[in-house]
């Protein structure tokens, strides 16, 4: 995919689009200053591609690829990677082990291609021992995990990129103009805004919930903070009328029972929203209740 930023002029500002992290990305900037809009678009895209290159598990040259390739030995890590691992560690702790960035290997057993191809217990049992954050050790300078284990930042990478990009946008605005400049960053449905639009208007965002039978778009309005969506979209299996979600319980290796098709969560930061959405899905049919109990604003599609 070409790494290019397109600039579209629309009423009230500009929409910059590009492709990163396997998703269409856009930046909406309400300003009349095209030069500044282009600059912001370029910087946001550059940050998205930087994070993609650094943490994609598909690129063997990425930090993530290197850590996986060299599993079994201690690998040096930089500060940013340390902070991300630290964050993953805290998410593991506060989810009682449900959120585990070493669970990616289970995808070797589960292929969520909408077929009826359910793996056998033996197939799952083969991979399950390779899952377990408790068998990872790291400090500020190095990271070690057991041989054949894998880590995957897929569950937090896109949301992290949204937050990092928004920080960059805010510092550019601060440097370049005195004016209020409303910006929305949307990386494939995970998004953040820097405040309400002009006249104190909320942003209206369409959250897509593609499924086999319907293409529905739910409108969500947001003034501050971020929203992220987690759901099984086109990633599930269907056998004998039972729908197997792509959300796996890392303790059993089997899908969580009856999670909502999709859940959208609002939080101050995109990475928080994303994680809360994931944690809610892991609660299966209790997803919405779990978020309501904590007074977290969310939208559910069952």
């Amino acid at each position, binding site marked *: 995919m070409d790494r290019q930023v397109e600039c579209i002029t629309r009423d009230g500002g500009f929409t910059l689009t590009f492709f990163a992290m396997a998703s269409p990305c856009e930046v909406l900037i309400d300003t009349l200053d095209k030069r500044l809009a282009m600059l912001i678009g370029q910087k946001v895209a550059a940050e998205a591609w930087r994070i993609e290159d650094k943490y994609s598990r598909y690129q063997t040259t990425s930090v993530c690829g290197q850590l996986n390739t060299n599993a079994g030995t201690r690998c040096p890590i930089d500060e940013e990677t340390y902070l991300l691992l*630290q*964050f993953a560690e*805290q998410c593991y702790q506060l989810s009682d082990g449900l959120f585990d960035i070493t669970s990616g290997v289970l995808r070797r057993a589960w292929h969520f291609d909408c077929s009826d191809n359910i793996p056998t217990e033996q197939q799952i049992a083969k991979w399950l021992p390779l899952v377990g954050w408790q068998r990872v050790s790291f400090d500020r300078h190095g990271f070690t995990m057991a041989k054949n284990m894998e880590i995957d930042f897929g569950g937090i990478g896109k949301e992290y990129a949204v*937050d990092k990009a928004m920080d960059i946008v*805010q510092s550019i605005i601060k440097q370049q103009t005195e004016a209020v400049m409303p910006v929305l960053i949307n990386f494939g449905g995970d998004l953040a805004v820097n405040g309400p639009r002009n006249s104190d208007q909320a942003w209206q965002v369409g959250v897509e919930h593609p499924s086999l039978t319907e293409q529905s778009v739910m409108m969500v309005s947001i003034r501050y903070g971020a929203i992220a969506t987690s759901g099984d979209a086109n990633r599930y299996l269907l056998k004998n009328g039972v729908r197997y979600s792509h959300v796996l319980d890392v303790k059993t290796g089997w899908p969580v029972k009856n999670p909502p098709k999709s859940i959208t969560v609002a939080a101050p930061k995109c990475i*928080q929203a994303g994680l809360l959405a994931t944690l809610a899905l892991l609660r299966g049919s209790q997803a919405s209740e779990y978020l309501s*109990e904590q007074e977290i604003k969310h939208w559910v599609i069952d």
Partner: protein
Amino acid sequence: MQLSKRRDVKALLTTATCALLGGAQASATESSSEQWQFDTAVLFYSESERVSAVEAIVAGQKSFANDQRLNVKLTIDSLTGASANGAVAQPNAQTFTRPSGNGQYHIKADKTPLDDTFKDTRVQLTGQWTQPLFNDYTWSVGGNLSKEYDYLSLSVNSNLARDFNKKNTTVSAGFSYAFDQIEPEGGLAKPFTTMAVDSFGTPEFDDAFAQIRDGSTEDKNTLDLLFGLTQVINRNTIVQLNYSYSDVSGYLTDPFKVISVVDQHGMSQRAIYENRPDTRTKHAFFGQVKTHFNNTILDASYRFMTDDWQIDSHTLDMRYRISLNNGHFVEPHVRYYTQSAAEFYQPFIQDDAMALDYLSADYRIGEMDAFTVGIKYGLPMSSGDSLSFRLEYYRQTPKNNGTEAIGALKDVELYEPVDAIIAQVSYSF
């Protein structure tokens, strides 16, 4: 147990996010919408040789979902010093009795008589609730309570605004109703009676003082109506036009003010208590233009007020905010004010004057010019707070409204200017 543990998730996640993205930024997004925001200020007001005051304000604002907003404000001020009692200066020394009857004060020759007993502390609490009502409507309701030793004021207000033309035009209408009560120490003086001065400290004085007292409390009611039009002109300019109507009824006299009765040589014979009409109707027209230039903002306003006491006033006010580096700014301010005298204003009256219904020598309703020059300097603080300083000089120049000074009064200052310094420090967080 389960519930409290789940609640922890949110807090733990916030901590983890702060560590990952940096603390200040991670919490900044929500603060602007959900948290209380406070403006605080301390102001010193000091007139040379007269009143000085300290006033402190804490104002809080909280926004809620659906654009609702709550504003609360606490004001405490303390006033001490001397205030003109209305009498004229004389070539000889003069003695006056304090309004409470509990003492006397002596004024040197050629000095404007000032009553130095003013000492008061005021506490004021205001609250205002603002919310959208239907599409394009904003509704606001509020109340105010102010209490000082001898004065109580209560008011309620409400305002409805409607946006037109893509929110470029806003039309509003509002009212305020206030009830005020005064209860001065020592009671209220009967209008036109002569201040008891002689034989102070004797039973004769006490009798004379009691004779001229008339009750202990008086009220007044104020109804204000305010109609406004706000118009966005272009990307840089916004204009506001207001008409306001005010109807005050009740006790409008100042019980602390007197007027000198002089003979044909201009020599004071006695001081009599003033009397004002018990109604006053005011109309005010106000216009404001605010324009943003490259690095500066010009804020100019004009007000014309006219009332049935025959007072007309014009007020011109200009502020020019200049942005400096790093978010600092400097804002010069000038204000010019001029008013004509109330029809019953007289700096003094002659012995043989005809009986009048109303009379006051309070320079504040006499002919007067005033101007203010000031400067404000503001700077942002590291945590998003802001700090500002303001220093202003205010000068009032009372003027002769056409009364010819007679005899000794030609040699004294009947219209003494008042100079004041205003200094203020504000902090917002």
